[in-house]
């Protein structure tokens, strides 16, 4: 009695395993028939690329923020020193006008004022340099913007592909024509990885290449 029961449950297990096996095969075949395997592969391929691109965006934006903040930290003390020195000189001049003393005694004040006037354009130009650097740091927006636009195109393509698979496999539905756009291999946006063959990493390499072309 017991052995028959064991035999039965073993047979049940076998049957269950083979049913699961059949279902798995059926599922895999349906996925392949539906064309989903291609779409899934596209998504799978897109993910590491997307991660690299997002990393590039994170890197570029944080670099830009860093650059701008560094400039602010350099420029603000310069402005503070101008303001402090001129305030101090003004106070001394005010005192002199209240109670003018002999020129010989005022000479120090005159000398200090001349030194300040001499120094001011230098400080102003140092501040200007920092402002320029802050401006240049904004170039990240163009670069990350291009990368994000490329990513949006990619997501749109995957979405189209998945919709196409659905449409193709829905009876009685109009066939949407999703034309695969020809790859525009000259429009890639910023290079995320500059060690890839065929990519110029620096302006010097661009110049070298142009030189070989007779520029």
């Amino acid at each position, binding site marked *: 009695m017991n052995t028959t029961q064991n035999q039965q449950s073993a047979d049940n297990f076998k049957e269950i395993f083979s049913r699961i096996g059949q279902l798995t095969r059926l599922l895999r075949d349906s996925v392949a028939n539906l064309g989903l395997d291609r779409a899934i592969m596209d998504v799978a391929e897109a993910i590491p690329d997307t991660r690299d691109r997002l990393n590039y965006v994170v890197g570029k934006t944080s670099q830009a923020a860093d650059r701008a903040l560094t400039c602010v930290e350099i420029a603000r003390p310069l402005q503070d020193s101008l303001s402090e020195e001129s305030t101090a000189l003004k106070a001394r001049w005010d005192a002199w006008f209240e109670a003018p003393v002999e020129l010989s005694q005022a000479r120090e004040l005159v000398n200090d004022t001349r030194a300040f006037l001499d120094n001011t354009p230098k400080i102003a130009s140092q501040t200007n340099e920092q402002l*320029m650097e802050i*401006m*240049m740091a*904004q*170039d*990240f*927006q*163009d*670069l990350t*913007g*291009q990368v994000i636009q490329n990513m949006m195109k990619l997501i749109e393509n995957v979405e189209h592909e998945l919709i196409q698979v659905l449409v193709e496999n829905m009876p009685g539905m109009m066939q949407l024509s999703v034309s695969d756009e020809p790859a525009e*291999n*000259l*429009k*890639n*946006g*910023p*290079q995320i990885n*500059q060690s890839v063959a*065929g*990519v*110029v*990493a*620096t*302006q010097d390499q*661009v110049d070298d*290449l*142009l030189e070989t*072309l007779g*520029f």
Partner: protein
Amino acid sequence: MADKNLRFLVIDDFATMRRIVRNLLQDLGFKNVEEAEDGQDALTKLRASRFDFVISDWNMPNLDGLQLLTEMRKDDSLKAIPVLMVTAEAKKENIIAAAQAGANGYVVKPFTAATLEEKLNKIFEKLGW
């Protein structure tokens, strides 16, 4: 030394980059700077008034920088205007294609103020400006 009254057209679909290039040009003393947001817009502006120098991005909607360059070189009234490409496109094919289409210079983004100045001066020198 190039004439500070030269009229520049700066073409980029990103307003930030147009402003950066405009500011850099102003810093170099060039105050006559106009902007266009893509190649199509640029062609319209180039055909409507006189420009002496074009600085163009590559990857733009409607008409890209290479197409703009090609159109300009086909047009008798525009073909003599120097074109400096300033672009993030950094493949060898890009640089070769731009050179073959008749670009006068190629600056890869991100670039420095010094690089832009150097490339501009190089073009001015070649043109004897």
